[in-house]
């Protein structure tokens, strides 16, 4: 039996789509569903149908949730594209040898899904990955159903030939007017292609993986992801002698949270701590406040600010599973149990976040379970850092946290001592470090001071008018010798007339994991 060529083309398309979607971009698809929401029930349905793009958006929201398992959501989407291909062949009566033409639309739709990049955090239209597919499918089905009826009444040949096109256009108009009101498809107005971000930006992918690991309290996986980045960056440097590759600010923050929560924050400069703003092609203006600040605040025990960022994100960019879960979590941690119950009730109606909601709902029933939960145990030490104050982050969570912890009046637990010291270094707040360093030294007179703090103390202690009296402390000769080598190398390169950038590049290999390198050569601390 001879297989028709149109099915061979279809099979090839399906394979390509599978490779590009669940194989290469599973994290991307998972993140898309995490920024989407579907709540069973009349209230959510009417809310979406009445305001946000009609029934089409509601169906699209329903389907988008299947990206929780990227292969499952992809299978549904690819099946719909296959249907579009077959309907196109039938509607326009395309001969076998021209069947690749019918793949143009599915390919464009595939491109569309891969095209969002950072837009996935800013898309306001609910269910946006499935929307164009559903619109097109509706148009084709509409045309296909009406075609036989109209053909009976049409006699002119040219009219007959054009009829499918006319019907598709009519269906398109009906769709836009009644099913997807145009003012709601805002992503089409704002969207600029960022195909390369999705497919090739490694940091974009690292960020997504680190976010998920952090969200699931898998701190070791966050660190592993950062180590993987370091390996890639190091390999690419060796290959091409390229400039030093910097991770994004978000990756640095996620990494440091993981180090903090695993008691290794004093290793923060051993893994690249020099964050930068993501590079993208035509993407949206990105801000950490939308990309991850709610989770960052949460992991730093700042429940009110985490709640605020989740709420504000829901207001501006639409409700999502991510926001809803964050609002439930912060309510739980704040012991606002009725509010937590509200959000958990909603999450319990979802297909894939139900178990998460049930697990957290147990904490409502049992305070013992709550107090013994890993989440509470992890975050509680950071929740009692100070008294209440009125403040604002002005949309810059990293600046707020650095200032907040660096200027902590009382670091009264071992964890907070480390956080205060490390945040001071991260922020290059010399004065704050010196204050916390003396507090630390007085609180632990018999203990060895971690190397990172020694590095910083040696550097700052040698500065003019430094509040650190070097003779008060015993420094590890390994640290002081390395510092001497750093100074000597620095002076040598300076005398050679090298630019600061070139000096930084040369000194990266031996000193890139020290505070000194960060202090002198990392000057591009851009907040976004």
């Amino acid at each position, binding site marked *: 039996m001879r297989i028709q060529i149109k099915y061979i083309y279809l099979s090839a398309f399906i394979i390509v789509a599978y490779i590009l979607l669940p194989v290469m971009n599973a994290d991307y698809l998972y993140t898309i569903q995490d920024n989407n929401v579907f*709540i069973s*029930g*009349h*209230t*959510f349905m009417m*809310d979406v149908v009445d*305001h946000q793009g009609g029934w089409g958006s509601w169906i699209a929201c329903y389907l988008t949730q299947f990206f929780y398992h990227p292969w499952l959501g992809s299978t549904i989407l690819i099946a719909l594209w296959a249907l579009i291909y077959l309907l196109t062949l039938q509607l326009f009566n395309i001969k076998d040898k021209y069947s690749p033409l019918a793949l143009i639309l599915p390919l464009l739709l595939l491109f569309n899904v891969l095209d969002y990049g950072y837009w996935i955090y800013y898309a306001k239209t609910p269910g946006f990955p499935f929307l164009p597919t559903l619109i097109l499918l509706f148009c084709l089905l509409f045309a296909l159903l009406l075609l036989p009826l109209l053909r009976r009444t049409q006699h002119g040949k040219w009219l007959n030939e054009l009829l499918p096109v006319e019907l598709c256009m009519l269906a398109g108009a009906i769709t836009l007017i009644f099913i997807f009101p145009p*003012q709601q498809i*805002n992503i089409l107005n704002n969207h600029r292609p960022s195909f390369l971000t999705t497919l090739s930006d490694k940091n974009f992918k690292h960020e997504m993986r680190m976010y998920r690991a952090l969200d699931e309290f898998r701190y070791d996986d966050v660190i592993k992801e950062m180590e993987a980045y370091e390996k890639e960056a190091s390999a690419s440097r060796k290959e091409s002698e390229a400039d030093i590759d910097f991770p994004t600010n978000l990756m640095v923050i996620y990494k440091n949270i993981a180090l903090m929560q695993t008691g290794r924050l004093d290793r923060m400069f051993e893994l690249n701590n020099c964050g930068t703003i993501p590079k993208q092609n035509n993407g949206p203006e990105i801000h950490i406040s939308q990309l991850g600040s709610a989770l960052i605040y949460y992991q730093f025990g*700042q429940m*009110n*600010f985490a*709640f*605020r960022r989740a*709420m*504000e994100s*829901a*207001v*501006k960019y639409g*409700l999502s599973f991510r926001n809803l879960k964050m609002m439930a979590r912060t309510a739980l941690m*704040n012991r*606002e149990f*009725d*509010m937590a*119950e*509200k959000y958990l*009730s*909603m999450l319990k109606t979802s297909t894939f976040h139900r178990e998460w909601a049930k697990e957290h709902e147990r904490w409502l029933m049992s305070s013992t379970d709550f107090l013994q939960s890993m989440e509470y145990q992890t975050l509680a030490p950071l929740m009692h850092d*100070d*008294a*209440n*104050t*009125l*403040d*604002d982050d002005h949309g810059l969570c990293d600046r707020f946290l650095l200032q*907040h912890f660096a200027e902590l009046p009382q670091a009264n637990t071992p964890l907070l001592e480390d956080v205060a010291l490390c945040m001071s270094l991260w922020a290059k707040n010399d004065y704050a470090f010196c204050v916390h360093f003396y507090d630390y030294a007085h609180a632990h007179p018999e203990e060895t001071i971690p190397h990172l703090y020694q590095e910083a103390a040696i550097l700052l202690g040698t500065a003019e008018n430094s509040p650190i009296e070097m003779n008060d402390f015993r420094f590890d000769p390994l640290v002081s010798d390395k510092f001497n080598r750093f100074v000597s190398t620095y002076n040598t390169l300076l005398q050679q007339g090298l630019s600061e950038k070139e000096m930084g590049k040369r000194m990266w290999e031996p000193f890139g994991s020290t505070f000194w390198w960060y202090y002198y050569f990392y000057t591009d601390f851009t907040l976004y």
Partner: protein
Amino acid sequence: MGLIALLAACNHPDVPTGAQQESRLPRIYPDYTEVTIPYNICPLNFAVQEGAEEVVANLKYPGGELTYGKEQKVQIEEDEWKNIMKASKGKSIEVDVYAKIAGTWKVFKPFNIYVAEDSIDHYISYRVIQPSYVAYERLSINQRNLTNFDEREIYSNMSVSTESTGQCINCHSYQNYRTDNMLFHMRQGFGGTMLVTHGELRKIDLKTNETLSAGVYPSWHPTKNLIAFSTNKTGQSFHTKDLNKIEVQDTESDLILYDVEKNEVSIISELDDELEVFPTWSPDGKKLYFCSAHFEYKNDSLAKETEMIQRYTEVKYDLYCADFNPETKEFSNLEKIYNAADSLGQSVTLPRVSPDGRYLLFAQAEYGCFHVWHADADIYMMDLATRKVQKLDAVNSPRSESYPSWSSNGRWIMVDSRRDDGNYTRPVLAYFDKSGKAHKAFALPQKDPYFNTFFLRSFNRPEFMIEPVTITPQEFAKKAKEDAVPAKYARR
């Protein structure tokens, strides 16, 4: 016939037999046990929160009884409810709740729903908004028919602008519960005050060079075409730990009077070191009540906003009253009628006088002016004849209560409450009988009893109306796009 009988049977389940008696009331949501309701309100649908597989509620009313129940919900057919109300006016309905729990039917202690002989205004309106902080996106002012479940948009901000040109809409207000004289404000994109006078729509810019801001919190004079407003310089900041989460503070505020006919603004009060706000007229229009906090800035080196943030708990509002001559438009005899700040260490906001002029409702909390975000805020009432103040325990909850208002006949109180979860504001209604006693408050009924659980927006500033707004959202939107007519300033 058989089909009709079958459908009727489905709508009215049988009363379970042999049910085990429980000695307590059932847990129902919303809590409608032992409440007094108006005879013209829509059905009080509720859910039974007993973890049951099935529930049945048997409503026994004068002259009959009807059963309802599907899964955990009790949703009553509207026409049947109207008949029940008609028969029960001035009497009560006894409700037996049955719940099938782990295969066994249980019947709970019955509760009553008392049906007052007093009706409630047919409409309320409120702003629908996420309880967010700085961001806003989709806001609308909606009107809800209390005799059924119909809700319609009066105006939506999305109809004229979105994104960076988005507009905030707020402070809808009506003269004497009617909608031919009404207003609301729009801020930022296409800013101005939408003013309807005798059914005619205008857009006014109430900001003048001589006043602090455009008009903010409004109150229509009951007989003259005058509106008292506060003018405010408002800011907000955020608690790092406190569960109130936000403070909304005025660094400065005054009172102005707007003459609608002349399109003129004049100043009522702009005293130094006083933050005057929330004006409200007495029903005869001869008195203006308002709140004012005495606050002296002490540190010249700090911006007012900064000092206010540092001393926010010191801002406490008292209640004042001034006589007003509607003919000359003169104010006189300013009097502090409730010294909440100094004598009680409390702060009074949002005063509203009953239609008979006898009582005054207000919201009170420990400090500040924005009590919707203050969990300790409760509703209090002053008897204006005796100046005696009482806390309305029947209306309050452990969470925030604010924005009280009276129905046009003075028999119903409406309050904005966060009693459900502490974050989402919902209107609650309470009967206020002729003896001056407030009865247990009940939630605004919704078709789906779980609507409030699953709806993630607040209903702010609920106001009674005796008729719907007839100007369409499209007409408002068209006018919104026009330039606002600037108001003139008139020296008093």
